C-alpha cells in the first residue's frame, strides 16, 4: 500500500494550519513534505509597503504567541539602522515583558503538550495558572496577548504603580506551581511512558538541521541567543541556560519547565535592579532610516528569531526578512520523518515526533488521505492516524 497522508490543516482549538504530506509504504514513511502555505499571508512584502511605525504592529502579528519577541526584534533592528539604543530602563522593562511572555508561552506549551497526551486535568491546571501571567501582561502592557509594548526607541509605558508587588506575588505563585507540576510529571507513569525515549533528536542532527530554542537545548546543546548574542542587557542579568541530554520528548518538557523557573528569577533580578530614568527615546512617528542593513536576533520562546532588514534611505524598509523559529524547527520534523537507510520511521512515530517538537503542528490535525488504489480522498483527524498506526504495530506482533 502506497498512499499519501497529508496532515493538516485544521484542528478544533489551537490551530496553525500546516500540512505535512507523508508518503508511506505500508507503515514506513518514505517521504515527508511540509506545507506551511496555509498561514502564508505575505507579510514580508507587506512590510515593504508601510512606514516603519506601521510595520511594528504588523510584525507583532506574525505570530501572536511570541509577539513580544517579534516586536522587540523589530525595534532592535530599526534602532540599529538609526544608530540609536534604547535607554537602560527600557531595556530592563523589555526583559520583564519578554520573560513574562516566555513564561506564558511555556505554560501554554506544557498544558498543550499534556493535552496532546490526553492529560486534560493538568492541561486545565496549567492554563489556569497561566491566566495569572496573562493578568500581569495585561496590567503592564494593556492587553493580554498582543502587547504592543515595545516601540522604536524603548517601550511605550512605564510600570504602572503597584504593578511590582503584584508581579512579585504572581512570580512566587508560578514558581511554586511549576515546582509542583515538575514533581507530578516526574512521577506520573502514564506521562513518562508517552515521552521517554520518544522522538529522539541527537545533538549532531539538531545542529545540522538548524534547530533552535528549547528544542535544541533539549538535545543537549547549550545555545541561547540571550547568552551568545546578548541583545537587550542580557549580559547584565545572570541566568542559567537549561539543557537536558536525553534528547527525547521528556527532555523537551523538562527544559521548558526549568526555563520557566529561570524566567521567574530573571524577572525578579530585573525588578530588583531596575534602572531609573527614561523609558523611551523621543523618536518622531515618521522618519527616514539611513541606508544600510541591519540584523537582529532575539531568543523567542520557541527559539532564535532573526530579522534582517535592508534600508535604501526611505521611510519604509527596502527589504525585510523574518525567520521565525517554528520554520527552523519544522525542518527537523521533515528530516526526522524521512526514512533513509537503516533509519526507519513509521506512521506510529509521527505524533511523537510532531508533538514533542511543537504541539501546534501536531494539533493542526486534519488528515487528507489519498489512497492511490481506490482513488479516494478522505478527511479525518490526526488522532485516527495515531490510533491507526498504533494498532498496526500491535497487529504485527
Amino acid at each position, binding site marked *: 500500500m502506497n498512499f499519501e497522508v497529508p496532515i493538516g490543516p485544521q*484542528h*478544533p*482549538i489551537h490551530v496553525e494550519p500546516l500540512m505535512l504530506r507523508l508518503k508511506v509504504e505500508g507503515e514506513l514513511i518514505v517521504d515527508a513534505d511540509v506545507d506551511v502555505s496555509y498561514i502564508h499571508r505575505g507579510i514580508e512584502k507587506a512590510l515593504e509597503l508601510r512606514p516603519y511605525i506601521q510595520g511594528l504592529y504588523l510584525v507583532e502579528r506574525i505570530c501572536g504567541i511570541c509577539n513580544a519577541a517579534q516586536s522587540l526584534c523589530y525595534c532592535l533592528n530599526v534602532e540599529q539602522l538609526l544608530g540609536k539604543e534604547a535607554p537602560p530602563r527600557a531595556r530592563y522593562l523589555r526583559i520583564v515583558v519578554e520573560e513574562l511572555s516566555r513564561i506564558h508561552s511555556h505554560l501554554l506549551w506544557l498544558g498543550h503538550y*499534556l*493535552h496532546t*497526551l*490526553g*492529560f*486534560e*486535568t493538568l492541561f*486545565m*491546571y496549567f492554563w*489556569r495558572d497561566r491566566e495569572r501571567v496573562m493578568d500581569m501582561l495585561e496590567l503592564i502592557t494593556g492587553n493580554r496577548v498582543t502587547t504592543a509594548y515595545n516601540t522604536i526607541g524603548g517601550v511605550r509605558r512605564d510600570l504602572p504603580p503597584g504593578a511590582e508587588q503584584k508581579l512579585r506575588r504572581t512570580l512566587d505563585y508560578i514558581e511554586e506551581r511549576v515546582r509542583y507540576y515538575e514533581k507530578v510529571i516526574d512521577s*506520573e507513569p*502514564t*506521562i513518562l*511512558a*508517552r515521552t521517554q525515549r520518544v522522538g529522539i533528536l541527537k545533538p549532531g542532527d539538531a545542529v545540522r538541521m538548524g534547530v533552535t530554542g528549547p528544542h535544541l537545548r533539549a538535545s543537549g546543546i547549550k545555545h541561547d541567543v540571550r547568552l551568545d548574542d546578548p541583545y537587550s542587557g542580557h549580559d547584565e542579568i545572570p541566568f542559567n541556560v537549561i539543557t537536558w541530554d536525553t534528547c527525547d520528548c521528556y527532555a523537551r518538557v523538562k527544559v521548558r519547565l526549568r526555563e520557566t523557573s529561570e524566567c521567574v528569577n530573571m524577572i525578579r533580578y530585573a525588578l530588583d535592579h531596575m534602572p531609573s530614568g527614561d523609558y523611551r527615546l523621543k523618536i518622531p512617528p515618521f522618519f527616514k532610516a539611513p541606508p544600510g542593513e541591519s540584523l537582529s536576533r532575539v531568543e523567542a520562546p520557541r527559539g532564535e528569531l532573526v530579522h534582517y532588514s535592508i534600508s535604501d534611505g526611505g521611510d519604509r524598509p527596502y527589504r525585510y526578512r523574518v525567520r521565525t523559529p517554528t520554520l527552523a524547527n519544522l525542518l527537523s520534523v521533515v528530516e526526522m520523518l524521512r526514512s533513509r537507510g537503516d533509519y526507519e520511521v513509521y506512521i506510529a512515530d509521527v505524533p511523537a515526533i510532531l508533538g514533542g517538537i511543537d504541539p501546534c503542528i501536531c494539533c493542526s*490535525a486534519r*488528515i487528507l*488521505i489519498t*489512497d492511490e488504489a481506490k482513488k*479516494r480522498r*478522505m478527511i*479525518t*483527524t490526526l*488522532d*485516527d*492516524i*495515531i*490510533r*491507526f498506526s*498504533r*494498532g498496526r*504495530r*500491535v*497487529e504485527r506482533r
Partner: protein
Amino acid sequence: MIEKILATVFFPGAIFILAVSLFYEWVDRKLYARFQNRVGPHLAGPFGLFQPIADLIKLLSKEDIVPMATDRFLFTLTPILAPALILFACMFLPVAGPSGIISFEGDLIAVIALLSIYTITVYLAGEGSNNRFASVGAVRAAVQLLGYEIPLTLSLLSVALAAGSLSIRGIVEAQAERGLWFIAGIQAIGFAIFIIASQAEMERIPFDIPEAEQEIVAGWEVEYSGKRLALFRLSKDLELFLLSGLGAAVFLGGPIGPVIPGLEPMLYTIYFILKSIIVLAIFTLVRALFARLRIDQMVSFSWRYLMPPAMILIILTEVIM
C-alpha cells in the same frame, strides 16, 4: 403482565433508565469540571442539569447527513442497535429491588456478552461509515477489547464465585446475607480491576484510544451527525449507567441497605443510585488523573498488570470458598 410491561417501559425500565443515564452524564461532566477547578455546565436548567437533554434534543433536531460513501444499511442499523443493546443490558440491573426486570441464573454472563456485542456494533459503525480511518478506529476498539475483556470478566466471575451464584440477584442477596459488601475483603482487588477495565470498556482516559478526546469526536463516530450521533451519545450514557450500576450491584451490595419498613421499593432505588454514583465518581476521578496510553501500551499494561492479579484473585477466591 400489564405490570411487567409498565415496569419495562417506565419504572424502573427504559424511560427511567434513560433519564438516569442522562443525569449520570451530567454528574460525570460536572464532577470532571470540578476536579479541574471549573464550573461545568450550569446554564441549562438548575445547575445545568438539563445539559445532556439539551444536547440530545439539539442533535435530534439537526440536519441529517448521510455521506455518500457510507454503507447505508450499517449507517442506519448501528446507531439504533448500540443504545438498544445497552438498554437491554440495563434491564438486568437491580434498580428497584434485589433483582432486575429480567433476571435468571447466569444473567451476569449475559451482561458481559452484551457489552462485547456492543463493541462489535461500534466496530460495524466504524466500518459502515466507510471512511478508512473511522473503520481503523473501529478496529482499535476491537483490539482494545482483547486487552480488557478477560480481566473484566475475571473480576466479575470471582465475585460470582464468592457468592456462589452467576446471577446478579444471587450476588446481591449473598451480600445481604453476610451483611458485608464484597468490596470489603479480597474482592477489593477485583473492584480495582473492574474500575480500570470498565474505563477501557467505556473508552475513557487513560484508555480513550479508539475514541478521541472529548473535543475531537472522531474515530468511528466521525461521519455520524445529527440523530445518529445523538443515539451514539445516548448509548455512551447508558453504558456509563450500566457499568457504574453493575459495580454498585456486585461490589457495593446493590440496592440493599438499612430498610424502613413500607418504604422498601423507594429506598432500594435510592440506595442503588447513591452507590452507583459513588462508582461513577471513581470513574470520573480516574479520568481526571491520567494521560492517555497508546494502544500497544494499553494492551501490554492489561496483560502485565491486570491479568495476573485477576488470575490470582480467582484462584484465591476458589481456595477460600
